[in-house]
Each structure stands twice: as C-alpha cells, then as structure tokens.
C-alpha cells in the first residue's frame, strides 16, 4: 500500500530533514509514527502523499510513484489530515465541508455518508466551520477525511485538542474502518492512544527511523523511546516495572489484564504458602 525506499529529503533551509527512511505498510495495517517535536513526522506524512517529493529514494503509494504522479490524483485514494485543521477548511457550512472531498473522489452516496458523519461526531451541519471551537474544527476536518473512506489514511495528530470521549469515539471509528480494510498511518504524541489503537510503531528521531516494530515491543523499550524524548505508556511501563515478580504480566497492555495477571500470580503464591 505504502512503501518508502531509502528516502532522503531536506527543506532547502538548514535542518536535518529526513535521512534514509525505509518502511513498508501492507494493506490493512494500522501504524503510528512517534517521535520528538521536530523529528520529521509531519514531513514523512507529506512525503507519503506526494506533497513533498523525496530528494533521493522512492515513495510508492497506492500504486503511484509520488515523484511522477500528481498529488491531486493520489489524493483520491489517500486521505490526509493536517496537523492544523484550519488549513483544510474552506467551505461555508460544516456539511459542505464534509462533502467537499467526496466530490473529487467521486463517491456516489455522499449525502448519506455525510449525514452519518455528522451524527457520529455530533456536529451541526448548518454551522459555519470557522465559528467552531478548536476541537470541533479538528472534528470537522477529520470527518471530511473519514467520510471518503480512502484506502489509506494518513492522519497527522488526529486526536490533539479533543476531549477523552471524543478521542475514543474517533479512534473507535478509525479502528472500524481499519478492520474493514483501510490502511492507517497516524502521528500521535499520546502514547496511550498509540498503545490502545495502533498495531505497529515507527519511532522517528532527528529525521531517522530508529525503531520499527509492534507497539507492544516498542512500549517496553525504554532506551529506544528515551532516544526520541518519549515516555512509554503507563501500563506497559507498570507491567515492565512489576513484570519481574509475576509471570505473564509483561504481556499485559491494559489495566484489566494486569489485574488479572497479578490476581493469578497472587492466587498461585497463596496456594504455595498455605
């Protein structure tokens, strides 16, 4: 679906840019890019849909080589959410905004999908997008990407500025799309979201890919994460911290399984003692 091969890129000003990044996303994967501020996460996203062209190496997405395909053509198959939602909004009502992208993608049941999105996100279709709050604008921008149900979605920090409920609702919806075959590449600073939803983690630091593996493993690699100024999500950290004492606990990625593992272990202990 998406394949980067020895990709180098630099903005013409000084700064590291992207150096020698290679990875491949298979159809249906759910990957998260994590890394410190300025690591180059947004740059990678832009490279992935052809907004930026690599200075060397190749980016292949949805069957196109980005170096010689039009971005507007790639955009029909690749949904893209920008870090700053305001750049995306340009229509006078929320409904038109959500319909906008679908027009180009040639989606036939646009009306229905739009209504579905409005309901899902609890948005008022008649409102003016620019009058909404920061979080609501983020929702509208996200809705306009999700409504198109593209084969690949690149989401640059989809959950920043959203409250917990909204965040869960959106991520659940993305997960549903992912289960139906959509490939997802997401940038996030929220390790809990990454742990709960993504399956694969790509750790970026100083423009280089320093880690690539399952989120489960990456969250347990404190040395790797600290290289990218990141702190592991709390539960794996807790699991690693107490993991030495209880068997199985190291595998736990959510609270319930920690408690369960700990309870099992305690039960085992007590049986042994008495």
């Amino acid at each position: 679906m998406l394949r980067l091969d020895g990709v180098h890129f630099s903005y013409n000003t000084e700064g590291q840019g992207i150096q020698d990044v290679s990875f491949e996303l298979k159809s249906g994967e759910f990957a998260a890019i994590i890394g410190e501020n300025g690591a180059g996460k947004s740059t990678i996203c832009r490279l992935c849909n052809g907004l930026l062209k690599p200075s060397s190496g190749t980016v292949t997405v949805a069957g196109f080589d980005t170096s010689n395909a039009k971005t507007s053509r790639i955009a029909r198959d690749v949904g893209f959410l920008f870090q700053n939602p305001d750049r995306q909004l340009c229509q006078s009502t929320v409904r038109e905004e959500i319909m906008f992208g679908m027009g180009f993608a040639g989606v036939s049941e646009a009306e229905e999908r739009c209504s579905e999105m409005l309901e899902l996100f609890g948005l008022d279709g008649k409102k003016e997008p620019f009058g909404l709050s920061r979080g609501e604008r983020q929702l509208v921008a996200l809705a306009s990407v999700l409504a198109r149900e593209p084969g690949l979605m690149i989401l640059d920090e989809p959950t920043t500025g959203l409250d917990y409920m909204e965040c869960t609702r959106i991520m659940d919806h993305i997960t549903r799309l992912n289960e139906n075959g959509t490939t997802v590449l997401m940038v996030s600073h929220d390790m809990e979201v990454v742990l709960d939803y993504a399956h694969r983690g790509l750790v970026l630091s100083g423009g280089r890919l320093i880690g690539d593996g399952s989120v489960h493993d990456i969250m347990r690699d404190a040395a790797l994460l600290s290289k990218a100024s990141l702190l592991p999500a709390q539960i794996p950290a807790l699991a690693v911290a107490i993991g030495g004492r209880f068997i199985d606990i190291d595998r736990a990625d959510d609270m319930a399984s920690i408690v369960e593992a700990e309870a099992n272990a305690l039960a085992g202990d007590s049986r042994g003692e008495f």
Partner: protein
Amino acid sequence: MGGLLDYLPGESIIHRLNPLVKLILSFGLCVSCFLSDSIIFVLSVIVINILLSMMARVFARTLLVFLSLIKFSTLLFIIQILCVRQGEILLNLPLGLYITDKGLMFSLLFISRLIAAAMPLSLTLSVTRVVDIANVLVSKLRLPYKYAFALTAAIRFIPLFSSEMAGIMEAQTARGVDFETKNFLKKIRLLLPLCAPLLISSVRKVEGSAISAELRGFNLRGGSSGYKQYPFKAVDYSALCLCAALVVVSVML
C-alpha cells in the same frame, strides 16, 4: 520561501553599519540618481550598489534582484521608447511607430534610474533586520513606537501570509483539488474559495499577536524603553560623508 527582501544574516562591515546610516545611504543613492541627468552617473550608482552588495557578501541576491529588475524594465523600456515622439528619427517601424534619439536616451536613463533606485532598497533590507530599522527610527528619530511596530509587523507578515497560502493550497491538493491545471479561469475558480480560510487565519493571527503584545505591556512602552542602543561610530560618519559627497556630485552632473 526565498523572498528578495528578507534579511540575510552576516557580519560584514555593511551589516554592522548603523541601521539609520544604512537607511540614509540608500535614500541618498535613490535621490542622487534622480537629481543627476547623466546616464554615466546613474550607471555608476548601479555599480556602487553592486560593489556594496559584494562587500556585504549578498551578491547572489543582488544579482537576482538585478535580473528581475532588468526583465521588468525591458518591458517599460519598449513602451517608453515607442511613446517618445520628439527628436530625430533613428528607426522607422510599421504601424506608424518610430524610435527617436531622444526617446532612446530618455528611456535608457529612465530604466537605469529605476534599477539604480530600486537596488538600494533590496540591499538595505537584505542587510538590516526590520526590527533594527524600527528601533532606530524610534530612538533616533523619535518616531512613536506604535508606528514603528506597525512597520515591522507589516513586513513580518508578508512571508507569513505567503507561507499560509502555500499551506492552504497544499491542504486542498491533499483533498484532491488539482491546482496544476493550465486553464487560467479554472484555476481562479479553484483559488477563490481559499480566500476565506486565508483571510480568517490571517485575521486570527494578527488578532492573536495584537492581544499578546497588549498583554506584554505594549502600551507602556516609550521611546526610551528599547534595550538596544545604536551609537554612531567612525565608519558610520565616513559612510555619511561619502553619501553626502555622492549627492553633491549628482547635483553638479
């Protein structure tokens, strides 16, 4: 964004001149080419500009400015030369147009003046921070700080707007809008709706920085609040003398 007017950092003697002196110098260069009627003098002002830019190590930029000015002036030159009807006819053209010796001289002088007068502006902005210009206007010329701030803000917002616009177009491309179309009308139709987000995000930004300036005590600021001093040094005085000499020469020629 490689604008032709933004600051290029450096440590050259030109960079270290007092900002006010740089302003006066560029003003002097502009004025002198309008005072003089000699094309040789105006051409030497262009050479002086180029020499100054070499001293400041911004020659590449100046060359770019020079070339784009040439492009623009060629157009003006052609219009000018066809419009002047006095003097002796040098060349007859179809459609009742002709070129005269006066027209040729006048147009040459006109465009070289234009080039000579535009170059110092770009040069000054290339070697001086706008903040320094504003500060020196406040401290030396007693310009109210508000106006100086408006000047700096205005100049700072130009590249900001253009990068904002680039960002918005990028976002629309990512949604499938095809800006690469050759059809001019179609392109306009695609670009028009983008004015709304540009305006709104710009107004938001301006409002934001106005409020934040207010919150940081902007209104309390007086002429003496600047922490940076801009003393005149020997180089500055000698630069001023050279400038005065140039203006005097221009009046005589």
